[in-house]
Structures are given as structure tokens and as C-alpha cells.
């Protein structure tokens, strides 16, 4: 029963992820644009920032969850609090992946419109991420971390917009 679940998840999840990434760039164009420019201009620094923030937020989730499990009354407050950093991390990664989709689309089909670029970039990203082992453990995590770092740089420092 569970063996047939993988292809079904891919069939539903892949188009869903492409739509999600497209909608994120449409709904949050400024932060996605800033993250895209940061990741394009400083990929190494973006990667390092992505790693640092992933470690921090993961550790925060683990600390809050573990502290909640140790608490005597176990009211569940800390476990609920642990969801906050997890949601922040998920939001940052989603915006980062959307920015990376736009960047990939811009480089693949520069003559197309911005929405087409994001859709094509997201499709390429998701399909490449489905590649066994290389896609799962190298390409997709790398892109997600660079995107997350790009979001952090886009939020905290100023990256000049390109001339119109």
C-alpha cells in the first residue's frame, strides 16, 4: 500500500510545488526579487548564510521540542512554540526556492516573460530534484540553501536593483 504512494506524491506534489513557487514570486515580488539578485550576485555567501540559518532554526526546533518533552506538566506550550521557527524556516526556504526558480528561468529563457520564466525554472528545478541521489541529496538541498541565504541577504542588506 505504502509502496505505491511515492509516484502518487510526485504526481500531485511536483505540479503543486511548481504552482506554489510561481505564486510566491507573484505575491511577494520584492523579497523574491531581492533574494534572486542576492543569490545571483553572491552565491557563495548565500550558501553559507543558508547553512548557518538552517542549523540555527533546526537547533531551535530541537531545543524547544526537547525542553517541552522534559517539562513536568507537559502542557504542550513548548511544542507549539517549536512550530514557530519551523514555519519561519519553511517560509524562508519557499521564498528562496521561488527566487531560485526565477533565476534559473531567467538564465534558461531570457526572452520570455517573468511568469513564464518562473514556471519553467520551477519545473526544471523540481524535475532535477527528482533525480535519484544527485537531485535528492546534492542539487535540491544546494539550491534550497542558496535560496534561503539569498532571502536573508535580501532582508538584511541592500542589493541594488538592475537598471530598467
Amino acid at each position: 500500500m505504502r509502496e505505491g504512494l511515492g509516484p502518487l506524491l510526485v504526481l500531485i506534489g511536483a505540479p503543486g510545488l511548481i504552482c506554489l513557487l510561481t505564486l510566491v514570486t507573484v505575491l511577494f515580488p520584492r523579497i523574491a526579487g531581492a533574494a534572486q539578485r542576492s543569490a545571483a550576485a553572491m552565491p557563495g555567501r548565500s550558501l553559507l548564510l543558508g547553512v548557518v540559518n538552517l542549523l540555527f532554526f533546526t537547533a531551535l526546533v530541537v531545543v524547544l521540542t526537547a525542553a517541552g518533552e522534559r517539562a513536568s506538566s507537559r502542557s504542550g506550550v513548548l511544542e507549539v512554540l517549536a512550530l514557530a521557527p519551523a514555519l519561519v524556516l519553511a517560509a524562508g526556504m519557499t521564498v528562496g526556492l521561488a527566487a531560485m526558480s526565477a533565476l534559473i528561468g531567467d538564465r534558461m529563457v531570457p526572452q520570455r516573460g517573468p511568469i513564464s520564466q518562473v514556471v519553467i525554472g520551477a519545473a526544471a528545478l523540481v524535475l532535477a530534484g527528482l533525480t535519484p541521489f544527485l537531485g535528492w541529496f546534492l542539487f535540491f538541498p544546494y539550491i534550497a540553501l542558496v535560496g534561503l541565504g539569498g532571502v536573508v541577504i535580501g532582508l538584511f542588506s541592500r542589493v541594488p536593483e538592475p537598471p530598467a
Partner: protein
Amino acid sequence: MSEPGTKHPTEAELQAYLDGELQAPSQTTVAEHVLGCLACTRRLEQLGSLFALIESMPDLALGKDLSPEVLRALPSGLKRLPLLAMLEAAAAVALAALGLPWLDSSGLGGDLAQALQGWGSTGLGELNQLVAGLNALAGGLRQGLATPGILPSLPPIPASQIWLLGGSAAVLWAVGNGLLLGRSVIRRKERP
């Protein structure tokens, strides 16, 4: 010659007349005035020569592209979150996280909840319902998170290791972000 006492068009009106940017009535008025006014005719000729001279001049290419510096100097439309404020927020969250286990283990949380419930039963029925709802929500979330397969359950971790992990992560985050983001901040300060 124009009649004595007739108001002369202003410099801006004459320029707009030359460019054909005046509205139809004003264009006619200025044209009629210029026909009868020697001073305005001469001024109009001077302006015409000046515009012709400007247009005949070649475009000079700048030796340096200033657009990136100008764009950097412009205020960004994106609202930036100051790093210091974020660090303060992180410190506040860390303090709250440190205080919550104590609140949880000391039984004060339960006392507070009982006090709130007692307060609610004295007449604030809606608040009482809200407290009960929040309690049920926390219980439901706890049950959901504890469902096998949704989230991996953690093995028991000693308290000292929990704080060591949290502290190391906070230090790594502050130092890493400070170093990696600091360069752009320093660059911004160095800019004249």
C-alpha cells in the same frame, strides 16, 4: 507693436509656445501677442536659436557608468529589518524559551490557568471559554504532534545538552550572520 499695458507672456509660456505645448486658446493669444510685440519676437528668436544649438550638439558619452552608484544611493522600497532589532528579538525569544520550562515545571503555569479559570467563572464567561479553547487547541496539537509518523520523537536529552545545543546554535547564528552580512553593512557605511 503690442498695445501699451498688454501683459507679456512669461519665459515659461514662450518656451511652451515654441514647443507647441500650450493649450489652443493660450497658443493663439501668445501668437497674436508675438506678432505685435518686437521684444517678445526677439526673445522668441533667441530661444529658438538656443534650442537649435542645444539640439545640434553631439551626445557626450560618460567615461564611467554612474547608474549602479545612483541606484545604490536611492532609498530602497523594500523595508529592511535592522540587524540589531532582529538580534534583540532573538534574545527575547531565547529568554522566553529559558523561562518557559521553569514556568512549566514549577507548577506556576497550572496555578495561573486555574486562577484564570476562576476569574472566568466569576462572570467573564467568554474569557473562560477562550482559555478552555486554547487549552483544547494545545492538547490537540500535542496529540497531533505525538502521532507516530508525523514527527520523529526525540530521545530523552539531558537539560545541560539542550542548553548547550541552543547556546551553540545562537552563537553560530549571531557570529555567522554578523560576519557574512557585516561586509555589506560596512560597505554601506564607507560610501560617501
